[in-house]
């Protein structure tokens, strides 16, 4: 028995609203609910809030951008995961299957190694992710034998591990007092330094990629059929697969560039979404986006409130994701196809 999509999305939206409320209310800098309400009202009405400037700074410049970034990154990773799981017809696939994360990571550690500025490091990560997936796609397309989907996934795995070696090499070169800790923090994932300036480079690619995927949603359904059946339906699978990979890579690379490496969100959330609304890609993408954003927001709220020192996001998503995933495997039946 499957829940109705309507009820599924209603649950997801309600959870999201709760998560956003909690995220704005909680933090290391104490802000009471009354002050928060006044501040939000002044933001909506345009009237001065009369609150101390520190509170304004915390909400508008620090906590607010971070909440938005968590929502965007979580949604991006979940949408990309959903897409790749459908495209490769494999429930164990995550957004980094084609090397987007390892490429971005190599770009970022190189940027840190070369002592580039913040924006340049994020740009290097973004470009690294795109190049890696481009390389995987190019290599995969030249191999004409076998199932093209399988070839692509295997190429992704192989190139990903080569990139991992590159990351290891750059870490080995790095000076252990300054650069190595910075690389470690980046590779564990964090939104600790998010500012307003980080939102635009994140929002653009995520919106663009997600819009493309939503536009392709009906064709995506057919793509999750075996290759021959999809072709029999009259789909040109090659160009379509290319478009889908480009869109999903765009959102993944943007999210990794902004927040570092955060595993598990793109693997676990699509299953949860499928559990709620079923496998129809048209309904799945928005639900996955809502759930993914909410999930990462909750994790990030935990990361920044648990203690004075941040807990890396990648650690939390793994610790929470693993038992959750096992529970999901044990309790869901037949939600996949």
């Amino acid at each position: 028995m499957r829940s109705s999509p309507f009820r599924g999305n209603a649950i997801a939206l309600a959870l999201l609203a709760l998560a956003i409320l909690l995220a704005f209310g909680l933090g290391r800098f104490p802000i009471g609910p009354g002050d928060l309400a006044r501040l939000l009202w002044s933001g909506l009405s345009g009237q001065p809030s009369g609150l101390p400037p520190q509170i304004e700074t915390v909400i508008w410049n620090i906590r607010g951008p971070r909440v938005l970034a968590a929502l965007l990154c979580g949604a991006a990773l979940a949408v990309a995961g959903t897409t790749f799981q459908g495209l490769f017809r494999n429930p164990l696939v995550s957004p980094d299957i084609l090397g987007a994360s390892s490429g971005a990571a190599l770009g970022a550690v190189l940027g840190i190694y070369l002592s580039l500025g913040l924006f340049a490091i994020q740009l290097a990560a973004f470009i690294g992710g795109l190049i890696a997936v481009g390389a995987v796609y190019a290599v995969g397309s030249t191999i004409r034998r076998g199932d093209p989907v399988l070839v692509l996934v295997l190429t992704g795995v192989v190139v990903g591990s080569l990139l991992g070696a590159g990351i290891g090499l750059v870490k080995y070169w790095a000076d252990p007092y300054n650069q190595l800790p910075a690389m470690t923090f980046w590779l564990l994932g964090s939104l600790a330094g998010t500012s307003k300036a980080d939102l635009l480079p994140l929002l653009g690619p995520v919106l663009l990629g997600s819009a493309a995927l939503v536009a392709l949603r009906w064709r995506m359904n057919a793509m999750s059929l075996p290759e021959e059946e999809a072709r029999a339906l009259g789909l040109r699978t090659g160009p379509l697969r290319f478009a889908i990979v480009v869109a999903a890579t765009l959102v993944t690379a943007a999210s990794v560039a902004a927040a570092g490496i955060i595993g598990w969100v793109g693997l676990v959330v699509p299953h949860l979404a499928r559990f709620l609304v079923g496998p129809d890609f048209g309904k799945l993408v928005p639900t996955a986006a809502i759930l993914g954003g909410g999930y990462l927001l909750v994790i990030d709220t935990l990361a920044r409130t648990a203690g004075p020192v941040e807990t890396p996001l990648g650690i939390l998503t793994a610790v929470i994701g693993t038992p959750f995933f096992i529970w999901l495997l044990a309790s869901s039946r037949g939600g996949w196809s």
Partner: protein
Amino acid sequence: MRNPDRRLVLAGLGSFVTAPHLARAASVRDSANREVAIPGKVQRVFPAGPPAAIQLYTLAPDLLLGWPRANRAEELEFLLPGIGDRPEIGRITGRGNSANLEAVLQLKPDLIVDAGSTGRTYVELADRVQDQTGIPYALLDGRFAAIPESYRILGRLTGRSERAETLAIWCETAMATIQGRIAGIPADRRPSVYYARGPRGLETGLGGSINVETLTFLGARNVADQPGSGLAQVSLEQVLAWDPAVIVTIDLAFSDAVRSDPAWADVKAVKAGRVHLSPKLPFGWVDFPPSVNRMIGLWWLAKLLYPEAFPEDIRKIARDFHTLFYQVTPSDVQLDRILAGRG
């Protein structure tokens, strides 16, 4: 005299004569309480990492086999001429297998020195490398307060006890003078300090970390003073909640950005103009790498945190320190550049 063995014996006799108090000691206890044989002749010393290389350079630059990493051009300006030509030799790390011991042997060192942790991992690594290569391997305690003692051990091992004593006494005098003056400062007049690293300034050293040893030594209240011994990431919101009175940073990008960043504008230290960029030539004054270079950083920080208690001119102290430890006297223009924290 052509017989190398005889030369060795003569060299041994030489040190016998010049250092009579060592006459009976064929070995020295290092900081990890290991017995390390004093090499018969010491002409080439292999530093296992940057802190050891810096300490060795300050004691006996002629013995330095090479640098773990090549120095940058702007650093070489403040070191003895020709010292930058020494080869880049990599480092022996805690994992042991990452150093190529054959390459180490090819450099024919008479002694290997590491300055840093004296924990079990490093003790076992040192023992193993010593067994494999037959070269004496000494572990020096890299902690700030242990620097004078480390100098003395290194002096005995290399036959440079006299200079080691001079440097050790400089350090001891600095530490005692500074500690004596701050002892009477009540807790409420000791500023809360946030140590900012990374281009966003959101990496910091926890209570027990080697990165904040100088701050801890000065009795400053590290706002991130929670258990732990390493670096950690914090959020700006947390920094605002701590509201430190002073920010000390080693990052130029952060130091430039923080003054105009509206998100940081409300932090007490920023409002009061008390964000201080640490000098870093030829080596970082506060941390990075954590070696004897932090001794001059101690004076710099003491003056920052307690200006009334330390009327001395930092330029004079820095010039003296450079002259004694690095054996190069910086000009006034060079001192300006050092103190500006750039370059």
